[in-house]
């Protein structure tokens, strides 16, 4: 550079070094994620995925198969509903214990809080995988797994919702001599009932998706059917299942948003606090939960016999102590690194694709594409990408990228719509091509929002990357799946602990980042 210091852009040096640093970090990440675009076009891979995809048409419509499909769909719904009921049972007392609401001194309960962290820090898929080994293939494992993870999640969010509102009413009631439970019922619940119900319904919608995914490890429902179809390369059946699944998610979404909207209406003034609407909803809710447990026919009584208790005890005992030998720890560390690499590279791909597609027109068409991409869970994508590039981390990268492109594309498009329009328009009016007007005028306004969305998504993808390996897409999940299959429980235990620690670390880091950015 021959420029005098005064004429040099003072930002150039930091930018140069940041770019260098980014390259320095990204290169090993790409290495670890085994990114090899060539594999996509490898002739033998192309043949496999080609024949599989061509089998998609026509979707299987045989009456026998449709019968299975119908039963599996009901089973998925029942697992989600029963799992949520269990989660709610677990969450209510835990949230009460963990929350500071209604306490005169805002003390938190560290013991319960850490229990919640453990419950939701281990993904439901891992619980399902473990429970399948105790209770055998079938819905019981799925229901219990959902109950534990979602119980922890609901409890945490319930506790936070209870704390988030005006504390004065409950405090005033305590000062009139009301006990804490009553002070919460009369002083806090009326403020938060809508939010609690809304979040619960939203979680039920997530549970439907989760129960499909858990089927892949043998916990019943649509997922298990899909897994069988994929293993037999039966494209027609896979297509039918996929279509059913998309419809199911769509309907669950409709029900969920309908229920949440109905919460907004104020009841008519009458002596009874519940109108016919809420009474009807309550009846439906009770009916749905009862029907679900009846349909699944889980022999819970069999689970609580002395015999099964001792076998569960023995099973849990075999996980302890975890294998902490240096050799295994280094292997697990490698798995953590691979998981991070998969999540980072997958998110990066999705961010680039999402940003490009977010501006593509016609918008309606691309919105449909985004919706289709994001309604297929990452794990289902992974089974397909594993067919097209072979088992390994790259399949995980592609699966994450496909799903996340759908999510981020949608979010980016909204953020860009909401960004100030004037700067871009002014540039276009002065003859700047629209692409450049976007870079100079629109993008700077939307950038903070885009970055926030991307980081948030990356956070979720780290958790997801940890379990994608169950279908062979690398990372910690693959390690866990192998060790469990080989009955190496001490080693599996180490991997589960690593997943838990990773989840907690991500939690803490993102909370810290949010605090700093706020």
């Amino acid at each position, binding site marked *: 550079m021959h420029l005098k210091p005064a004429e040099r852009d003072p930002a150039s040096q930091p930018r140069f070094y940041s770019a260098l640093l980014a390259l320095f970090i990204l290169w090993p990440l790409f290495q670890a994620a085994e990114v090899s675009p060539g594999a996509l076009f490898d002739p033998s891979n192309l043949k496999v995925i080609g024949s599989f995809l061509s089998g998609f048409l026509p979707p299987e419509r045989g009456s026998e198969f449709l019968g299975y499909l119908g039963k599996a769909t009901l089973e998925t719904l029942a697992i989600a509903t029963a799992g949520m009921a269990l989660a709610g049972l677990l969450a209510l007392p835990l949230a009460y214990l963990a929350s500071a609401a209604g306490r005169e001194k805002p003390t938190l309960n560290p013991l319960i809080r850490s229990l919640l962290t453990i419950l939701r820090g281990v993904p439901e898929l891992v619980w399902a995988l473990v429970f399948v080994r105790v209770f055998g293939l079938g819905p019981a494992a799925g229901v219990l797994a959902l109950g534990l993870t979602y119980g922890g999640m609901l409890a945490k969010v319930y506790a936070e919702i209870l704390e988030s*509102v*005006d504390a*004065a*009413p409950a*405090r*005033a*009631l*305590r*000062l*009139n*001599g*009301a*006990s804490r439970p*009553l*002070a919460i*019922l*009369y*002083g*806090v619940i*009326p*403020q938060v*009932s*809508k939010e609690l119900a809304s979040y619960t319904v939203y979680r039920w919608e997530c549970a439907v998706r989760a129960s499909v995914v858990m089927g892949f490890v043998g916990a019943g429902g649509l997922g298990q059917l899909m897994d069988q179809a994929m293993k037999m390369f039966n494209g027609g059946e896979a297509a039918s299942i996929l279509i059913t699944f998309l419809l199911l998610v769509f309907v669950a979404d409709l029900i969920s948003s309908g229920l949440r909207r109905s919460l907004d209406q*104020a*009841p008519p*003034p*009458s*002596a*009874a*606090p*519940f109108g016919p609407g809420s009474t009807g909803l309550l009846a439906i809710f009770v009916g749905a939960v009862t029907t679900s447990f009846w349909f699944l026919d889980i022999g819970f009584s069999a689970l609580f016999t002395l015999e099964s208790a001792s076998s569960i005890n023995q099973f849990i005992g075999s996980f302890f102590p975890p294998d902490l030998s240096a050799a295994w720890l280094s292997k697990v560390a490698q798995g953590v690194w691979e998981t991070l690499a998969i999540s980072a590279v997958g998110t990066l791909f999705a961010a680039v694709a999402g940003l490009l597609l977010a501006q593509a027109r016609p918008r309606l068409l691309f919105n449909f594409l985004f919706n289709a991409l994001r309604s297929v869970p990452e794990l289902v994508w992974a089974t397909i990408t594993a067919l097209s590039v072979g088992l390994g981390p790259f399949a995980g990268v592609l699966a994450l990228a496909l799903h996340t492109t759908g999510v981020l594309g949608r979010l980016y498009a909204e953020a860009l719509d909401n960004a100030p329009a004037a700067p871009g328009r002014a540039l276009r009016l002065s003859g700047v091509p629209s692409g450049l007007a976007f870079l100079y005028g629109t993008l700077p306004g939307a950038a903070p929002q885009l970055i926030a969305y991307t980081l948030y998504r990356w956070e979720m993808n780290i958790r997801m990357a940890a379990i994608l390996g169950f279908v062979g897409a690398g990372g910690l999940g693959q390690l866990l799946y192998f060790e469990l299959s080989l009955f190496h429980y001490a080693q599996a235990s180490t991997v589960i602990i690593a997943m838990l620690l990773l989840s907690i670390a991500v939690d803490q880091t993102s909370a810290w980042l949010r605090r700093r950015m706020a």
Partner: protein
Amino acid sequence: MSFALNGVGLTHANGFVALDGITLQADQGEHIALIGPSGAGKTSLISLLGTALAPSSGQVSILDFGQNTASTAALKRLRARIGTVHQAPPIPGRQRVITAVLAGRLGQWPVWKSLASLFYPLDIPGAREALARLDLADKIFQRCDQLSGGQLQRVGIARVLYQQADLILADEPVSALDPVLAQSSLQRLIDDAASRGATLVASLHAVDLALNSFPRIVGIKAGRIAFDLPASSVSEAMLHELYASEGQILPTQSNEACFTPQAASTPPLRSACT
């Protein structure tokens, strides 16, 4: 004896001294108005009497109950006998008026009754009677977020009427009401206390309202008691001394021309506005 404070001080965690050396006693059935500039410690004193705050020094005895040696159950029983009207009514917006009023007796009702009352209000006549005294009987089944600020404040008063407490504490209970409604609502509270022989302690920003309605006036300034006198003995000069930090004009009910420093000297204060 309704309550007795002996040399009570209250220092907040940040070192701010809210109350200092307060000695104050009241017999059962007395009506006392607390007046003083904002920040003087009126709310702190009411919180102390309501057992919301514990004193940093001195002795507090409320309804013959030594607070310093309280067990949880005994404290709860005590609290059920204390009713507080808050300046900002502590009532959830989505709660219905009937439930908000019935909540006044949560400390007295058995648990099953409190729980059942969430599903169907168990004392509609009682709540309606309390609301009727404040001209709100027609709002009984409305949701609180459909009420105006003044209506909500009166629901807060109705809750305390319904509670039938032995010690009624009121922190600026009528601040959101217009002068006429303020006078009448305060009078309901006073009548209720008088009819049941309950003690009433109210902090009021409007000096005229205090002087007109309460026999005993306690002036608070900078966390200390400035004077504690029968209303008839409170002089103009004392009031100006009390409110010196807030300028020349004494705080009264809004738009009342009858109470200005110039005009006040000739007609006696308490009859000027009636």
